[in-house]
């Protein structure tokens, strides 16, 4: 009996202390869980679910256009960008190096990050919101409580946001497993971008610094970074429908490389040309960098290879 009388206050004290510690831990490492519907004006409505953990902005986008639902998720080192154009519901993915990055429009968190990085300023405050702008003239009305936008105008396009669900979660509830695929692997995706996007993101130099090749216009540029892969960075420049120039930064010099092609000398060095069925392919290795040209004929491939400079 005496023992119980002594232990009871101790247990209560323990519960109080434990509760205080737990409360402190939750407050100091919360993440914001949101379900947002964005609308770029007419037609397109995109529902996105995201978790915001200050430096880490990760998300899941559910594209609910056309009566269908498709699901896309961001990865551990890249972010999700919900496009503003309702006519193009496809989701774009944008790599980030950190919260100081700029120029990525129509993210729920864009102005929140820009404000905290000193790259946006408050121009007016009223009620529960404030008006902010950045150096490019983009503008937004942010909720004062969490600096998330009610609407924003970026590059001339206005997007409004509706918050369907908002809750704060403890850090231990952060859905790390969500950012891996079903097999538990981090997912690395190829990103479609433009020429400035390639120059901004890539640490390697694209092999062909031009907008047209062998009579073909630059159609798209792809970028992929995989710090854990055998190829660390890769840029695919797609010219027309049938020519691609690819620059790859290998993790290490490969002692084992495809051989058996026809040797050719180009300004970039001694390479090889292969005939793969009805397609031709040129490859040259410069240390840990592989540069390739894919094309419809040997002549086209060699003409592009001759023009390559770095």
């Amino acid at each position, binding site marked *: 009996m005496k023992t119980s009388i002594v232990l009871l206050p101790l247990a209560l004290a323990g519960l109080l202390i434990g509760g205080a510690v737990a409360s402190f831990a939750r407050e100091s490492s919360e993440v914001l869980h949101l379900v947002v519907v964005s609308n770029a004006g007419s037609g397109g409505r995109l529902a996105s679910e995201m978790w915001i953990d200050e430096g880490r902005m990760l998300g899941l986008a559910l594209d609910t256009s056309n009566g269908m639902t498709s699901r896309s998720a961001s990865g551990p080192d890249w972010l999700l960008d919900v496009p503003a154009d309702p006519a193009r519901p496809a989701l774009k993915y944008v790599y980030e190096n950190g919260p100081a990055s700029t120029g990525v429009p129509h993210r729920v968190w864009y102005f929140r990050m820009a404000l905290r990085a000193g790259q946006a300023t408050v121009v007016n405050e009223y009620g529960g919101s404030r008006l902010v702008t950045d150096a490019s003239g983009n503008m937004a009305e942010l909720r004062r409580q969490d600096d998330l936008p009610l609407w924003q105008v970026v590059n001339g396009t206005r997007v409004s946001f509706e918050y369907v669900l908002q809750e704060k979660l403890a850090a231990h509830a952060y859905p790390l497993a969500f950012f891996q*695929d079903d097999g538990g692997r981090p997912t690395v995706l190829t990103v479609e971008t433009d020429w400035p996007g390639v120059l901004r993101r890539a640490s390697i130099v694209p092999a062909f610094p031009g907008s047209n090749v062998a009579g073909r216009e630059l159609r798209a540029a792809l970028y992929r970074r995989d710090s854990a892969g055998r190829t660390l960075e890769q840029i695919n420049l797609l010219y027309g429908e049938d020519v691609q120039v690819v620059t*790859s930064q290998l993790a290490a010099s490969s002692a084992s490389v495809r051989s058996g092609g026809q040797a050719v000398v180009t300004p970039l060095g001694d390479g090889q040309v292969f005939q793969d069925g009805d397609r031709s392919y040129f490859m040259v290795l410069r240390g840990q960098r592989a540069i390739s040209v894919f094309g419809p004929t040997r002549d086209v491939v060699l003409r592009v290879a001759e023009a390559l400079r770095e």
Partner: protein
Amino acid sequence: MKLAPRSVLVLLAALLVGFASAVPDTARADVNFGLYIRASAGGVNKDPVNLAFTGNGILGYSMGHFGHHMGWAYTGGSTMYFQDHGSWEPHQDQRATGCDICTRDHIRWNQSNDAGPAGWDTWTMGAVHYEVSVPCVHSSRSFNDPRNVIADTMDNYSEHLAVWQYWGNTAASQQCDSVWTSGDGWIVRINIP
């Protein structure tokens, strides 16, 4: 019964013809395959060939060892074509980690017509991708990730040592939902004992 000389010649000729037809007439001893698979012979390049089951890698052995270690059970998927010594051949088998319309890893196989130590001995080509379920059914998001998983898993077993070789099949292909996906140009050779 004694055979006339002419009959012996006919019999020998028949045996030779029979023997010749038993050995694939395309059997070679050199590595000669297309770097990508296609939906049709005249179509555009799609998935890169990124796996080679070499050594004693006839299709049956390759699939047997793969199934034992990877355990992929689903068999549905569209027909794709491998290029083997200049001719296009439909895939011979396939396995996946999920159903036909599921997000999944998916591999297709075709046994190469190489048959000799000058190349990779007997071997089977593999093209694997990670695809997500989208309104137009499937969109490949990665060729590298599932290949790495297979290589890492098989390489855990000493009889299936993985050897990496850079072939440079990095050209991107556009998926049904307009997303572009490319491989990193590496082919992993997995030994089949």
